[in-house]
């Protein structure tokens, strides 16, 4: 930590007031508060730097970022690791911060994440948190129904059947923004065909008409066809589906850990919320977890590069990450950062222990253009499972066009 700090101090120039512009989409109350705390701490550490923070709505931010990176870049942007950042790196819009990584010994702080932030042997961003995806369940309803958290696919089907028979929708989901459906595809594929195949598929090295992919959809259909998901999910945002879970109309929700804060503000006690690993489907497949990494990068044409580097060094610090992730209910990226001791955080950490492979998320692992078509296909499948063959063929056609 002392080392991390020294970098900032060395680079800090004397004299005139500097500024720093941050663009981000921290709009959920908890996320907003967490970054506000970071900024406050940063301003206290560097009183001569004045921070301007532009907040965007999340869905709009994803399309705005390309515009402002090209037109009027800020000093710091929040973005996603993996394939999702490559277009900006390739277009020369992100600054290479490999030297900052060296100087602040970030490879030591973020060993498992380095690869998703590295391109052509250079580092382009600083990770600040990550959130494993898992199945959140209503512990009280499970207990009432005498259900133990399912560990394999058959148990999951049985539990779902039982809940359904008792008038409770097994799974809540809101697929309007498309990505919530992708969590299901990713996990079934990871459990059925393993991490390596999942990566081959997302890199365009395998076909969507491959029998292994068809197998994924066949398994998924076992949940879709009996009506184990809530109705009208295509009309709902993911937040809209939380009340179903909170009011006990649905008992499980596959989501990232950022959802916990939203569930609590919908009226649930922490004791009512359980978190389980996505059940095993094939015992021979090595365990993998879906845990997207959140990061900050600095644009190549940032107006205040010195302030930007100070901020990146600051936000990499373990104490800073511990605090901001505690507020946001997510996990710090820095492995030296302490994690608060709530049961859910412990469960979230447990999802990751002993796991070799971490996938980012469908829309970060595939090229952007594929993401839209793919996730639309997933949403359509969840509404019309009979269209499976058509959908897979369409995805295949898009892969061929992308990689021709």
């Amino acid at each position, binding site marked *: 930590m002392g080392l991390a700090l020294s970098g900032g101090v060395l680079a800090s120039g004397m004299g005139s007031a500097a500024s720093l512009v941050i663009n981000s989409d921290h709009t959920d109350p908890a996320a907003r508060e967490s970054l506000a705390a970071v900024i406050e701490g940063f301003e206290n550490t560097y009183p001569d730097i004045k921070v301007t923070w532009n907040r*965007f709505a999340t869905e709009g931010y994803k399309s705005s970022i390309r515009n402002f990176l090209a037109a009027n870049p800020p000093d710091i942007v929040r973005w996603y690791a993996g394939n999702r950042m490559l277009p900006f790196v390739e277009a020369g819009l992100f600054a290479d911060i490999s030297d900052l990584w060296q100087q602040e010994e970030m490879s030591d702080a973020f060993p498992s994440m380095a690869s998703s932030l590295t391109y052509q042997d250079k580092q382009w961003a600083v990770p600040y948190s990550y959130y494993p995806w898992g199945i959140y369940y209503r512990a009280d309803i499970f207990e009432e129904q005498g259900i133990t958290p399912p560990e394999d696919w058959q148990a999951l089907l049985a539990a779902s059947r039982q809940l359904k028979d008792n008038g409770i929708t097994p799974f809540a989901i809101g697929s309007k923004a498309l990505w919530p459906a992708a969590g299901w595809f990713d996990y079934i594929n990871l459990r059925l065909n393993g991490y390596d195949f999942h990566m081959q598929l997302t890199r365009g090295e395998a076909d969507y008409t491959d029998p292994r992919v068809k197998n994924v959809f066949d398994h998924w259909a076992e949940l879709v066809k009996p009506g184990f998901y809530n109705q009208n999910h295509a009309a709902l945002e993911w*937040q809209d589906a939380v009340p179903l879970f909170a009011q006990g109309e649905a008992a499980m929700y596959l989501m990232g850990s950022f959802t916990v804060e939203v569930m609590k503000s919908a009226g649930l006690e922490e004791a009512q919320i359980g978190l389980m690993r996505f059940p095993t489907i094939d015992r021979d497949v090595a365990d993998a977890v879906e845990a997207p990494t959140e990061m900050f990068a600095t644009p190549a044409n940032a107006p205040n590069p010195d302030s930007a580097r100070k901020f990146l060094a600051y936000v990499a610090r373990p104490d800073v990450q511990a605090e901001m992730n505690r507020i946001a209910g997510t996990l710090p990226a820095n492995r030296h950062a302490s994690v608060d001791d709530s049961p859910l955080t412990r469960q979230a950490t447990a999802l990751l222990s002993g796991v070799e492979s971490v996938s980012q998320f469908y829309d970060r692992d595939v090229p952007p253009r594929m993401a839209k078509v793919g996730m639309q296909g997933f949403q359509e499948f969840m509404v019309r499972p009979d269209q499976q063959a058509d959908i897979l063929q369409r995805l295949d056609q898009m892969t061929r066009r992308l990689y021709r």
Partner: protein
Amino acid sequence: MFPRPISEYSRGYRALYQVVLPVSLIVWLLPLIGIAITSIRPAQDLATGNYFGLPSAIALGNYVEVFTTSAMGDYLWNSLRITLPSVAGAVAISCLTGYALSSYRFRGNLLLFFIFVAGNFVPFQILMVPVRDLTLQLGLYDTVTGLVLFHVAFQSGFCTLFMRNFIRALPHELVESARVEGVSEWRIFWYIILPLMRPAIAALSVLVFTFVWNDYFWALVLTQGAGSQPITAGLNALNGQWVSAWQLVSAGAIVAALPPVAMFFLMQKHFIAGLTMGATKG
């Protein structure tokens, strides 16, 4: 008059008409009434499932919340900063072009006129990529100025059509006699034509105000943050932020709708005159 005045019908018909009139209006405006009521509904009504009953209290606090917890004030101010100069610019330019096309004979006059008319009908999408690039190159991306320049240019198409037809219907004897007297062309325009154009300027201003205020597409393409986005695009962003907080979405929608509605009621005669120009002549 068509249809026959209701006063010529029997009593029963007249009474029926007096009943059907308000009922049909309520049905017609039902969605709007619904959203207006939702906008003053306390949040706990929505949480407890009271969506359609009488609100348990009148929560004007929703409006306060809209202004205090979001950039709504900025968005409104941007809308004003975009709309007023756009109206002024487009109307001024089209007074000139409309006059030129209506009062001078020169080669290509009609062709030019039809380019203005046809350009006014093209799909926005065919302009999108180049206009965005141009704005980026001018350094005006995400600025009010960039959006104003586009609106002035695009609206001048419709405005030219409007002004040219209006001026053509004016009596031209005065212009001819002024020319005989050797009055300069600019003075003829300024002292003779322009005063006669006042009703057209008023009608056009109200109309263009509504068009520009309600623009959403170009705001989406040329601006992006609370620093320059008008209320339409801002409302879209806030809608993403206030997921299922319908009382806030509704209040925001009402706020965004108010200025053009006020404009309409204040300038109703001009508005309708502008909108229906051409509906009466062959």
